[in-house]
């Protein structure tokens, strides 16, 4: 069953940045875009299971810290070698200054 889980406070993440969020044995990456929207994806790169939150956010892109594989964090789309498997994304909402993500 899907439920909304509080990941962090809205101010915890800088604009155009990313934060790691662990919950119930799983790991996620929560993003704040340059235009101040929030997004969430699986936390690990689909190439070698590396935490994407150590990577760099540029516009819509999260770049993996390990080999610079790129994903669009809004859609999860893998943007070319070495990553070819898309990232799973999760719905996000901001309520009363809290960032919530919907996890099934």
């Amino acid at each position, binding site marked *: 069953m899907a439920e909304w889980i509080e990941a962090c406070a809205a101010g915890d993440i800088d604009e155009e940045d990313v934060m790691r969020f662990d919950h119930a044995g799983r790991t996620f990456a929560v993003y704040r875009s340059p235009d101040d929207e929030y997004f969430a994806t699986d936390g690990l790169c689909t190439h070698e299971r590396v935490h994407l939150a150590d*990577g*760099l956010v540029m516009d819509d892109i999260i770049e993996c810290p*390990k080999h*610079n594989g790129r994903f669009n964090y809004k859609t999860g789309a893998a943007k070319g070698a070495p990553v*070819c498997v898309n990232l799973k994304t999760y719905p996000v909402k901001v309520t009363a200054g809290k960032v919530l993500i919907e996890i099934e």
Partner: protein
Amino acid sequence: MVIVGAGECGARAAFALREQGYAGPVTLIGAERHLPYERPPLSKDGMAAGTDSIRTIADAARFEAAGIALRLATEVVSIDRATRKVGLGDGTEVPYEKLLLATGARPRILPLAEGSRNCLYLRTHDDAGAIAQRLRPGARIVIVGGGFIGLELAAAARGRDCTVSVHEALPRLLARAVPQDIAVVIANAHRANGVDIHCGVSIAAITDTDHGVLVGMADGAAIAADLCIIGIGAVPNAELADQVGLAVENGIRVDEQLRASDPAIFAAGDCCSFPLPLYDGRRVRLEAWRNAQEQGALAARNMLGADALHDTVPWFWSDQYQLTLQIAGLPDEGARTVRRDLDDGAFLLFHLAADGRLVAASGIGPGNSVARDIRLAEMLIARRASPQAEKLALAEIKLKSLLAA
């Protein structure tokens, strides 16, 4: 379109031709029997994990879906530039309109070790399998060469409870590519993990014994080992090009569009030397994974007539134990170094030219602690920026803010 060499670079080029919309025939010819695969894990977690893991770049179905004719276990033995054909080991020929040589490199051979059954080299998946089989707990491993491959293998061998010593002829580890401060961190990590490191000693003799090998040092010492692994660098596979009169200069010589001295032939990846616009056209040959990919993709575009320049910042990483090292640019271009300390013992070195331009950045730390900053530094380097040294030194000042400046 014909590509010789089905490694990282050749495979990337083949897919890139399709991504660019090319609909004609693409043939990718590789001497190895495996589907194109990634080499970096061979000396890292792949070696730690054992023999069977192979990380392919794409499965057979993806090559097929992209309409790439893959000819594995097939060697190209000749090129006829006049009639534009390559000759294969089985005597057949494949015609080309444009040819890409992505033949990579092979380990440099230590003549003293010739004929030894107990000295191995690492380049291919099959090499890795042969080594992994012999990294049994308690096995005594001598590694000749304190470069990346030797050191990553030393870490992997320690992970499998072998006794390991590393012997480097130069006065320190990683002398060619890595700044001293970082090499010291790596040497300390190896010592802390029980690797015996000897620098400034060359090998004088190698003799197979009943159960292993005896490695004799120039200073008279002799070390008995079960296996000797030699990692003393790589030489480009440029013979094919040389045979047909293409210019060769530390690899197949190409221009900034990756064109060899015949306009129908391109070369890319570990096999070629090319001018780097970043450093006023300094000619380099890189043995780096991202470079192989970037050059493969760019060569594909230029085979289709894009005339694009290869203007990039070299980038390299290495993993040893919990540490990851990353280097953007070529540190030897720097005249002075500014250090920035991060958490957990991680640090960055910024290499500045005499005129203050940032020409390279290197860093080491646990996990991916330096990755983001090295990536930002790489962008500063690409812009030919001259950030203030005082700002580079201060961890509180985000590199992203310097990029915006």
